[in-house]
């Protein structure tokens, strides 16, 4: 099952050329980019691990693409996303976040039912991948 999180997630995966164009758009607006990775695809897993330091003060996409490719080389089978942070006073939050790398095989989520008191049913979703320990999931 294909993970859909963040911007563009219902589109086919972006090519490097398209990623570069998105980065240029962010830089033109003065947003700072950062790269994050994880192997836990659960939608409530908001805080992924950051790869390196946030990339402030860059003017061109080349430096970020270089960093992204370094991240892909280190974690070829992880989810990797690019975040664009807007530091404008009053906003000070992410403006754009999109997945740029995903595992070759995404097993998806299972629904777990739990019998509660009375006839109550509790539901939870669980990623099949997280049944294995971190680092061995994909």
């Amino acid at each position, binding site marked *: 099952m294909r993970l859909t999180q963040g911007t563009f997630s219902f589109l086919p995966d972006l090519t490097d050329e398209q990623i570069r164009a998105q980065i240029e758009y962010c830089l033109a607006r003065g947003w700072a980019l950062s790269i994050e990775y994880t192997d836990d695809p659960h939608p409530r897993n908001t805080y992924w691990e950051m790869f390196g330091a946030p990339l402030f003060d860059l003017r061109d996409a*080349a*430096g970020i693409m270089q960093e992204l490719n370094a991240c892909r080389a280190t974690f070829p089978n992880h989810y990797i996303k690019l975040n664009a942070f807007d530091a404008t006073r009053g906003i000070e939050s992410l403006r754009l976040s999109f997945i740029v790398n995903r595992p070759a095989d995404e097993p998806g989520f299972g629904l777990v039912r739990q019998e509660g008191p009375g006839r109550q049913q509790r539901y939870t979703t669980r990623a099949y991948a997280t049944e294995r320990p971190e680092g061995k999931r994909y």
Partner: protein
Amino acid sequence: MQDAAMNALSETAGPTENRAFDIHAAFRDSRVADVLAELDRELVGLAPVKSRVRDICALLLIDALRKQAGLSTAAPSLHMSFTGNPGTGKTTVALRMAQILHRLGYVRKGHLVAVTRDDLVGQYIGHTAPKTREVLKRAMGGVLFIDEAYYLYRPENERDYGQEAIEILLQEMENSRDDLVVILAGYKDRMDRFFRSNPGLSSRIAHHIDFPDYTDEELFAIAQLMLDEMQYRLSDAAVETLREYIARRRAQPHFANARSIRNALDRARLRQASRLFARGGPLTQTDLVTIEAQDLRASRVFGAGGNDA
């Protein structure tokens, strides 16, 4: 989609040999002419520098035309080294170079990142590489200007981290040639020694440009440009005094070409201000913009007792 592909195909297959390329139109379109004219107008002298800039412009334009013709074009290496005495315009030309390369489409953003040893070399083991890479990333799409580059290499200290910075620089100069132009600058003799001890660096720099010292006449023209920019004027007597000042200043130690002239003018402005202040009374616009001979005469260069140069 298919039509476009067909067109592209027929274009490459067609008789391209006889197609005429209008170099002048390309020159006009690239707006390089403006930059070159600006270079001529605002930078006095520096003939070898200007001719090299023109050569580079020509090469890049021809390369653009070759690309249109479907001929192979290897991106030329444009790393440069600027050597020359202090105040000969190395930083100014580097800034211009970023604009020119941007207009020619060789660099994508055309900004200049000026750094010195402090910005590249770290303080402890493992600090240098990330620091240097950070700077290189910041300079991507533009020009990295390393002032006084010879400080990177300190042969007297074998554990100096400067060598590491040089190695990373070398590697990136080779790998990210499309993303980055590196300009090293410094005094001639020290740069020569620096290149002799780092032959790898020297061979990766295609353009070694030497900035000659200015003649007295050129320095006077520079002074005129500076005054125009600051909206000041020299009185007729002051023109003669300034010429004399330049000739005398050159003979004294720590002469830094255009920088000395700028300092002299700044001090003349100070003296003009206090002269006007002391005189009191109503001032005309002419008073405000005119620098008199006595403002320059008070300088130490004339041995007139002033305590600054």
